[in-house]
């Protein structure tokens, strides 16, 4: 049973670390500010989520588990807010996103 917990918890930690790393790679490889935000999003959501889930598995059912869950909740509430604040201030100050084709924005009716 202990082994199972370690395998699942360790696996989650490993996958979380991998996604955090991929987010970092994206941050470097992607071409401009707006696309880099998407790369950083991987680290924020799945990277942090999997790492914290792995830690929850390792902690077992205790107060630590609940605290980890709340950390995840607060992280997922604050990170899109911070991301939007960054992206919006970039837009407001006139940084133009590099788009695939033309500057025209598609929209729903």
């Amino acid at each position: 049973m202990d082994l199972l917990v370690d395998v699942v918890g360790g696996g989650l930690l490993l996958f979380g670390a991998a996604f955090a790393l991929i987010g970092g790679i994206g941050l470097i490889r992607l071409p401009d500010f707006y696309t880099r935000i998407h790369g950083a999003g991987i680290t924020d959501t799945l990277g942090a989520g999997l790492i914290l889930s792995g830690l929850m598995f390792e902690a077992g059912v205790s107060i630590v588990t609940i605290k980890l869950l709340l950390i995840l909740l607060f992280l997922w509430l604050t990170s899109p807010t911070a991301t939007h604040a960054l992206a919006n201030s970039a837009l407001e100050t006139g940084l133009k996103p590099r788009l695939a084709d033309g500057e025209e924005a598609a929209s729903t009716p």
Partner: protein
Amino acid sequence: MKYLIGLMIALTGTWVLWSWHFTTALLSYGLASCVVVLLIARRMRVVDREGAPIDLLPVLVTYLPWLFWEIAKANVDVARIVLHPRMPISPRLIEVRATQKHDLGRVIYANSITLTPGTVTIDTEGDLITVHALTQGAADGVLSGEMDRRVSRLGSQS
């Protein structure tokens, strides 16, 4: 009144979880600080549907698991693009209309878009949301409007 009670429960609950010490002294400090926060919040008139959205708790139970699954799928898509040797991105800007009646619903919708990798809300004006998408596929996901419908379905509260 129910928002006041809901906020009080949330505040004291957070205090107890954070401290997890059950001595009379610490519990009374916690209670006192929660009451002070509550009084300040009431004086600032922020204890309402928006400041303490307890009506949303039951419906979030159905929305959040769906959102988590969408986030996981989008993460794998973006990770694949980032690791791809040629990195096949096609960034674009799209505009969508949010059909939620209230600001709180629009905030949940816009934040859900941002939280999903591959799409970021970069501007909101009234019910018009401007989204930067990393690929055509990510843009189509937002344009399909499923997330918008699900957030609207969170009920009249949103």
